[in-house]
């Protein structure tokens, strides 16, 4: 996965609460056993005029030319709630998003983001409102800067906001780590845990099924 360090990019405000993963990518847009080819289905229910077609709905903010090439999404509480589908994150990434700002996130979605190089940033609702207002004045000019090393979101004319992120997630994003490789280095500890596990009843390896 691509490392994330610092970006300067167009932000797009989608200030709704409870934006669920069905809205981010409807199930009907998950057409193949694949992590790619999903960007077109992003927000399909809102982005296109009808379900089967691809005619853009001009009322949806991502179809507004002023926000073209947006890489930062600003949204409301509980962003990414609902289904665990990682396709929501794959679709956002493929579309070009690199960071999402929201007051809170669905828990599974949050972890899916960090595992795919998409930075989820938790900021207070009023701070997001302030940033969104400033961005909307002139989206292409008023670009946001996100510095993961310093954990700061800023713009030239707005105050900088500090955000929290766990050291593990920060490390993973900064380095683009594949966490399976990192965890496999702890093979000895995992084996030790298995050997001292006394829950014989939990062990399916030695269980024979009742027929």
């Amino acid at each position, binding site marked *: 996965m691509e490392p994330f360090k610092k970006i300067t990019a167009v932000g797009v405000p989608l200030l709704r609460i409870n934006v669920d993963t*069905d809205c981010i990518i409807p199930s009907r847009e998950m057409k193949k056993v694949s992590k790619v080819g999903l960007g077109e289905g992003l927000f399909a229910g809102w982005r296109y005029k009808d379900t089967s077609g691809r005619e853009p709905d001009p009322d949806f903010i991502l179809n507004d030319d002023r926000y073209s090439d947006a890489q930062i999404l600003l949204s409301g509480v*509980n962003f990414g709630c609902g289904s665990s589908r990682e396709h929501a994150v794959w679709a956002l990434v493929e579309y070009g998003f690199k960071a999402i700002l929201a007051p809170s996130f669905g*828990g*599974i979605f949050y972890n899916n983001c960090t*595992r795919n190089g998409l930075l989820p940033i938790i900021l207070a609702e009023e701070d997001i409102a302030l940033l969104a207002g400033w961005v909307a004045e002139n989206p292409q000019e008023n670009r946001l800067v996100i510095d993961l090393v310093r954990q700061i979101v800023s713009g030239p004319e707005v105050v900088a906001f500090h955000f929290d992120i766990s050291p593990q997630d920060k490390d993973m994003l900064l380095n683009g780590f594949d966490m*399976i490789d990192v965890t496999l280095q702890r093979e000895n*500890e*995992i084996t030790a845990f298995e050997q001292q596990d006394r829950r014989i009843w939990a062990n*399916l*390896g030695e269980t024979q099924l009742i027929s």
Partner: protein
Amino acid sequence: MSPQTLFDKLWDSHVVSSLGDGVDLLYIDRIFLHERTGSIALKGLQEKKRPLRHPENVFCTIDHIVDTLPGRGDETLMTGGKDFIQSTRASARDAGITFFDIGDTEQGIVHVISPEQAIVLPGLTVICPDSHTCTQGAFGALAFGVGSTEAEHAMATGCLRLEKPKTLQISFEGQLSEGVTAKDMILYLIGKYSAAGGSGYSVEFCGDAVSALDMEARMTLCNMAVEFGAFTGMVAPDEKTSAYLEGRPYAPKGADWTRALCDWQDLESDEKANFDKKIAIDAANISPMITWGTSPGQAMALDGLVPDSVKMSDPHAQQAAEKALAYMNIHPDRPLSGLAIDGAFIGSCTNSRLSDLRRAGEILKGRKVAEGVRAICVPGSSAVKRQAEAEGLDRVFTDAGFEWRESGCSMCFYAGGESFGLEQRVVTSTNRNFESRQGPRVRSHLASPETVAASAIMGHIASPKEVKDGAL
């Protein structure tokens, strides 16, 4: 040792190692997969030639995309669905995991069959790339949904790297009123505390009204913990839990069973355990519930009035309510009851078990679905379907005018195959009323199976009481 919550006990007993900064490497005992999100996880491992650490701990079923019409096979109404099924089957066989295929007696919705087979047990960690894995917390397991990448991680390493959530105790005190179900309890909770009310917490449900629930009702309660925004939900195991599990295919046997019962004795929150937050609810205050909007948090009493967005104090909730009222084509300060419906759906990992079908059957018996209403029942597993048929429930449903289907997730969500029609109003026993969840612009109202059955009979949103009191 200081007093611990049930969650703390489950968590601590699975810590392989502390990674610092509040992150633990947690051992995962069971992994379940399905063709929707599990297929891609298996494919991901295969592409990188990563072996599974314990294939014997990994199970897979076909439930999400497979058709539920009689005579089904790999072909699906959803374009391309066949590829998901066949790819999953091939990957599952290559990986050497236990696979419940279409036509197998064990097949069904993952969160219905895992308990049926006793794959979930008290004290285990269970994951699935499916948000409703919290359902299985009903057995006193630490069961939670993850993404596909995390499922790969768990299959390759036997572990997950996790930050410990906070703990929230939700106590339903006293007794439920007649006709009030676990579905009403969870909708009441989410309606009152919002769809983000449990955000960041692991929830333990307790109290007399929870203890009184049977295992299937506890599953319904825990199923929608994710709709409350929680990391998971759980109920401490008791005699009902072990009675349910004993003798099932993957349950421990003989001396192992005795040992398990002994170990499970400790799986409860200690008397003075410290929760980060507590909520107490008087069960007597809960009445049959239904959702009016497009988030499970937009819920109301079935005999109440649709809220007025103008009166909401939070501007974002107000804006969301306005959008939802427009989408659902309903009006504030009016009852939902009496609103004409086009569809009725009984099924899903929330409410598709035998007890759900029996309760709905009580209402349907000797009655007919109203003209113009498409009514569908999809048993949660092949076993539920067989049991229901053995006691004649299938006839009760079909005589009333319901379609009687093969098991699967079916029309709980629209994947490009079957759906209800454009802008149709549906009363549904499922868990999500999101925009277009059950089909393009479909208007979904979440409720208990008995409310779905009653509404199907009346042809409008109706309570079971209305059916029983009425001449129908």
